[in-house]
Structure formats: structure tokens, C-alpha cells
């Protein structure tokens, strides 16, 4: 259902710098409120959780509910003190997990 997520993390940063991270994932975010052609409710299927980890430590997370538009976009900031890897995770209602990694070099 979801395609490869897009993430944008600066490639380099100074130690202690606050960087802006942008993520975008393609997802229908079916709200569970709509009816299909047969008149029955279309079951809800959304991404219900998003987390970002830096070197194994969680730096940002969000719980999502109905009424979030399709293709959710997340922008947030994080302070980086050392080089490492950001790991982003999206959890779907159907249990699938979409992941993306991005490395940053801190000098």
C-alpha cells in the first residue's frame, strides 16, 4: 500500500546543531468513515504511528488517528551531538512496518 518513504536529513551538521528533518510517505490513509460502492463501510487503514530514532534512541514519535490526510508529511527538528544514523518507522493498521534510514556526519 505504501511506497518507499522519502526522507530528507542533512548530510552533514556541526556538533550540537539543531537540524530539520522532513519525511513523506505515500499512503491512502483510509479513514474508516467512508462507504464503498456496496454501501458498507470501508475498513480503516491508516498509518497509526511514526517514530524516529537516532543511534537507537527515540528522538521523535507521533500517534496518528483518523482525519489525517493521505500521504502524511512530518517535519520536526532534532539536536545532533555525534555522527550516526536516523531510523524512521511507520506502522500501518494492518501490522506492516515501513522503514527508512539516513546517515549524518557530525563534525
Amino acid at each position, binding site marked *: 500500500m505504501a*511506497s518507499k518513504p522519502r526522507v530528507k536529513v542533512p548530510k552533514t551538521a556541526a556538533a550540537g546543531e539543531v537540524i530539520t528533518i522532513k519525511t513523506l510517505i*505515500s499512503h491512502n490513509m483510509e479513514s474508516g468513515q467512508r462507504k464503498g460502492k456496496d454501501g458498507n463501510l470501508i475498513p480503516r487503514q491508516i498509518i497509526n504511528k511514526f517514530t524516529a530514532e537516532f543511534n537507537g534512541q527515540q528522538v521523535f514519535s507521533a500517534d496518528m488517528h483518523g482525519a489525517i*490526510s*493521505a500521504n502524511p508529511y512530518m517535519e520536526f527538528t532534532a539536536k545532533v551531538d555525534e555522527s550516526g544514523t536516523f531510523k524512521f518507522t511507520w506502522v500501518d493498521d494492518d501490522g506492516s512496518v515501513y522503514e527508512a534510514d539516513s546517515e549524518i556526519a557530525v563534525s
Partner: protein
Amino acid sequence: MLSGWLFRTKETRALEADSFQNPGMLGIEQGEAIWNTVEGSEGKSCATCHGDAAESMKDIGAHYPKWDASANRPINIELQINKCREERMGAEPYAFDKGGQKPLTAFIRHQSLGTPVSVDLSQGEMQKWWDQGKELYYTRYGQLNLSCASCHEANAGKYIRADHLSQGQTNGFPTYRLKQANLISLHNRFRGCIRDTRAEMPKAFSDELMALEVYVAWRGTGLTVETPAVRQ
């Protein structure tokens, strides 16, 4: 002559202008994947013949629709893709708005981002189609008795209910529409507009809509390609 971008709110404008945040770019990435996917009996992908789209398709999309001598009618990017699929790849042509048609069209057009639109009317019978398109543009249709010009020429910039009327330019198509949260093709938009006048809708890629595309694209001569534009 103004791009539809200028008729949108500053938030929508910013969404389009940021190539990362622009949700239409998801479609472009999908289109890129299709570009490199082998399909059909000949074992070819778009890339087999055309190589890197950033080079081979650069500025190409800004000059469609073009005259197609073999079909003896104008051809747009969607139909050009179908032609390649049938004649070179041995694959099924895409039905209107189905399969990879929208993302692939958007991907090809996106390679012309920033290129001014121009349509060559000197080829074949393009001028005749332009005349037909112009006539359609100024003909009133439907129960509401509206022509394209009634809204997009006489009243551009004013409100139609809660919506701001643009000039109806084609430079941003296929465009990401927030309402549908999806890419919207030009002929879908044409049909939507005609439906709103409460008229019978011509089929996508029919002679009527191809003539209209030739004329409306020509009206936008000089506007830069914005694909994928973001609209409300």
C-alpha cells in the same frame, strides 16, 4: 497570462514550491520506477530506448501536444506513451487514467520543469485543430450554459462559490489535487469542468478534448511547466 499557482493560497503555493514536501513528487518517483520497468513482449522498458530521462526527455514535455503524422491527429504525452507501448514494447496501452499513465506522464513532463510551454502549430493540420479547440473554448455548453471562457477568461480571479477561478492553464498538469489526494490528469480536469456545466462529457482523448488541449496549451504559451503542480 497567469499560472494557476498564483490563484492558490500561500500555503498551497509553498507546498508546490518545495520539491520535497510536494506530494506530487511521490507520483514522479512512481513514474521513474515505471520508466525503468520492462514490460511487454519485446522485453523493453522506456529506459531501454530513451536511456536517462533527465537527458532524453529534457524540455520535451513542454512542447506537447504535437502533430502525429501516422495517426493524422494531435498527440499528447499520454497517447505518445501508449504508442510506444504498443509499437515498440509490445505492451497493452494504458486505459485512461489507469495503470501507470498518470505517474509516467507526470514523470516525463517533470523533466521540463521550468521550461516555457510552446506548441508548434505549423506541423500538419495543427492549425485546424487549434481552430476547433478555440471554437469549443468559446461555445456555451450544458444546462448552466457556460463556455470555458465564461469562467476562465471573463471571470478569472473572481470567486465561484468558495473557489478562486484561475485562467485554466495547463502548465501544471498532471497536477496533485489535495481534494483527491492524487495526481489528476488534464483530460480528467477537462471532463470535470464540463460536468460542472451539466453537459454531456466527451471521452478522454476524443477529438473534442484533443482540440481543446491544443488550444488551451497554446493559450499558456510562455508559462513555465510546473508539473507536478499542487492545487486545492
